[in-house]
């Protein structure tokens, strides 16, 4: 068997899972990760369990990271970036910038798992993110729950009484040219609501949406359970603007009351913007260099067969952790086939 080695570009859940799969098949790999830790976007996700696990997969990410750190066949280079690639399919030569040093690496195949960016909510100024302290993104909420275990208002550190979740922030939006659904936001917002209300049953939550998107096998029971919860309102109407001031604990918004069809105005003391995923800016260079084709939205499409370049994870289009892992495993299989099987 010729010397096989895979260069994995991106140490998020897709890259880590693929490297683990390849290691188990006896194929060594090197993960090149820009940040100083593995796990990518998902590494700051919080557990969203309520009375039982809500299948958010955040813990699975932590487990995979722990596993990959124990595998001698996977070389991990954090705070490293790809400088350039030369050579030909099956015999690539990579130049990696790592902690100020230049390192040369041979690779028989390349796996691009560079992931996504989360939508910058400041691009929707009507929501007041960055202006009103109590308007936060789902990302902020994840960090809050992960490090503090409970939700609180940024302005005064108190527990909120009414939380509004705004869906489709940065997705399904022709005003900014984002004509895609980010797939995970409905599910994660519903899970957030369940987790928050489990810890603080007095908090009232409202979910403002256009269409509810299902995600995964347990979504049906999640949705039913939310519909039956009297502290949760699912409202098919998206407010167009939030009115408030910097430290406002009375963020006001107008929406259509689904039962009467009338326009009503209500106040909330915390608003969570369910931000979607966008093509990643800082991996443009790699994509162009490797001539990875893109679709209309800017996400990556599979390079030609036999190019030795493979894609995995959310860089191909928004996806949840479970789907990214399954995709990474499937890609590992494709790589094994490319490298001659077992």
């Amino acid at each position, binding site marked *: 068997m010729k010397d096989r080695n895979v260069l994995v570009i991106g140490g998020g859940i897709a890259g880590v899972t693929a490297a683990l799969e390849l290691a188990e098949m006896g194929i060594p790999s090197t993960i090149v990760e820009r940040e100083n830790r593995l796990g990518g976007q998902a590494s700051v996700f919080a557990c969203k369990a309520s009375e039982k696990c809500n299948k958010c997969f955040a813990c699975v990410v932590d487990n995979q990271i722990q596993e990959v750190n124990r595998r001698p066949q996977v070389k991990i280079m954090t705070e490293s970036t790809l400088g350039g690639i030369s050579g030909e399919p099956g015999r690539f030569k990579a130049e990696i910038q790592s902690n100020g040093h230049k390192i040369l690496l041979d690779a028989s195949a390349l796996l691009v798992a560079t992931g996504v960016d989360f939508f910058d909510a400041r691009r929707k100024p009507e929501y007041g993110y960055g202006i009103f302290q109590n308007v936060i993104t789902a990302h902020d909420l994840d960090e809050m729950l992960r490090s503090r275990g409970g939700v609180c208002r940024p302005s005064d550190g108190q527990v909120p009484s009414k939380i509004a979740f705004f869906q489709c922030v940065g997705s399904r939006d022709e005003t900014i040219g984002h004509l895609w*659904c980010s797939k995970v936001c409905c599910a994660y917002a519903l899970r957030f609501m369940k987790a928050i209300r489990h810890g603080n049953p007095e908090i009232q939550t409202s979910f403002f949406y256009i269409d509810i*998107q*299902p995600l995964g096998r347990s979504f049906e029971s999640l949705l039913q359970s939310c519909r039956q919860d009297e502290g949760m309102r699912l409202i098919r109407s998206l407010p167009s603007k939030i009115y408030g001031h910097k430290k406002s604990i009375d963020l006001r918004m107008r929406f259509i009351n689904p*039962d009467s*069809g009338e326009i009503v105005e209500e106040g909330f003391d915390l608003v969570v913007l369910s931000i979607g995923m966008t093509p990643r800016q800082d991996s443009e260079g790699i994509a162009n260099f490797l001539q990875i084709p893109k679709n209309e939205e800017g996400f990556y499409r599979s390079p030609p067969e036999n190019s030795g370049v493979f894609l995995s994870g959310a860089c191909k289009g928004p996806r949840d952790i479970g789907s990214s892992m399954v995709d990474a495993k499937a890609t590992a299989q494709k790589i094994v086939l490319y490298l001659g099987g077992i």
Partner: protein
Amino acid sequence: MRSADDCRIAVFVDRCGGTLSHLIDEEMIQYVSRLPQVVSCDQDENLSSPEGFEMLVSRLTKGKADRAVIVGASPKAYEESFRHLGVATGLNPYMFLVANVREQVAWIIQDDKRAREKAKAIIAKKVKEASLLSPIGREKIGVPKEALVIGGGIVGIRAALALADANIGVTLLTRAGDIGGKAIQLTHFYDRPDDVSSWFMKQIERAKKHPKIDVKTSVELKGFEGYLGDYRVTIRGPLGKREVVKGSAVLLTSGYDVVSNTEGIFGHRCFISPSQMEAMLGDGGKSLMDEKGKPIKTVTFVLDLVNETIKIDSANAVKNALLLKKDHDRMVYVVCRDIKVSLDGMERQYRKAREMGVIFIKYDDPPRFSLVNGGVNVQVKEVSTRVMGQEYTVSILSDLVVMSEKFVPSKDNEMLATILDVPLPQEGYLMDDNPQFTQVRANRRGIFLAGGCRYPQTLDEALVEAEAAASGVTQLLSQGVYEYDLAVAEIDPAKCAACLTCPRVCPHSAIVVEQYAERNIYITAGYEGDFTWRAARVLPTQCYGCGICVSSCPTKAISLKHLTDAEISLQMEG
């Protein structure tokens, strides 16, 4: 037999790159060195570094110690190194213990002095615990490069191809007379212009012709037994002949079923199923007319009365609505609760459909149907017409109404769950939806599942699962042998009363009950019988070492080699 006096413990203190320096001082080192049975105490700035490792190896090979305690960070940071240490020093990897004094002492106790006291207490306990350690062996079994795929739909076919192309011999079993399954009813892809039939035919042909794939059709599963490396399925062929097929691993791709509602009004010829719509569009629109030869003008897709949280019907509805509009210029309505666009490219298709004049109507209350003039009147309360407390009902006079068929678990699932001993939760699909199993892994080592048998999915999603499951199989078979530590449960057959508790509680189906034991302690004195007794036995390749059986056994016949009751009791001492 080891006794407490025989132990010689080497202690290694990891300063963890300076993060533990405030805890470790000369007094601490002296204290540790003087603990009973400690023969040496060394420190290092960073035990996990190559230099630290070298020091460890040197001390353990030259010194007299037969076990070691590491004082430092969480055990998880060191455990992989123990295997290499074991190889380098000849010391068994299970003769190491870690006293976690960083994450669980230094970082949670603010007062340095009290942290040090706590650390000393923990180290003393670990040193005592070390005297209870015993070496644990490593074994291997051959895993021939053969696998079984149960289910001959497109998911099974794709999985079989992924395995066979990787040089694994596959036996593909199907109940049906031919492979292909349900997805063959699709006539168009929603996301690419390729012709579905030729794509399908190519997959099926390749599977049938592949030198490493043996397709067996019209088979019935009659029995299943074995373990990783040696799974044996008993099948009955079309002529009644029984055969045992073997594989090192098993992939389940048995799919799901559909149930149509043809009761009452829904039995009328104007109501068709999504697959009938596919077929109509598949023949270039020639069948888009009623039995009087009149062209069908208005088609209404009704979604979400069943299958509300499954994307398949929605994707096909948008796809076919576009075809009806674009290629055949019909009036098309899509009536649904929510429009499901959570598929790559679906939002654009939905917008395109709207721009082309497909009308989407959303409801909260289910629509009502009545027969009118040879067609169907679909009455829907459109949610956006609710204004000032009023509501308006939209009436859609349709020539054809496409009604979803409910996706249900395959009626074979109960049989499969019983025969293969995998969980069957209440919803009826196979295997628990537990994130730790990453969708494609079953609870038994060597068994994987993919596609609709787990949950009805779109074709794209199911195909990715097929390859992911194939990857799981490929890993297990990749080295030709499967190596494992005997850090598993072990049953003392003399104490086993064959009460069958442990095979029932074992979540990984790793325990079998067989006739292999000679005598047990329950035999009455004076009995001189001659036959072998039944006793439970743990299959070491299948055991995950969870210990559920250990605590369930009423006679304490089971022990976990790497964590005995004695070790737990010791840790509880005040």
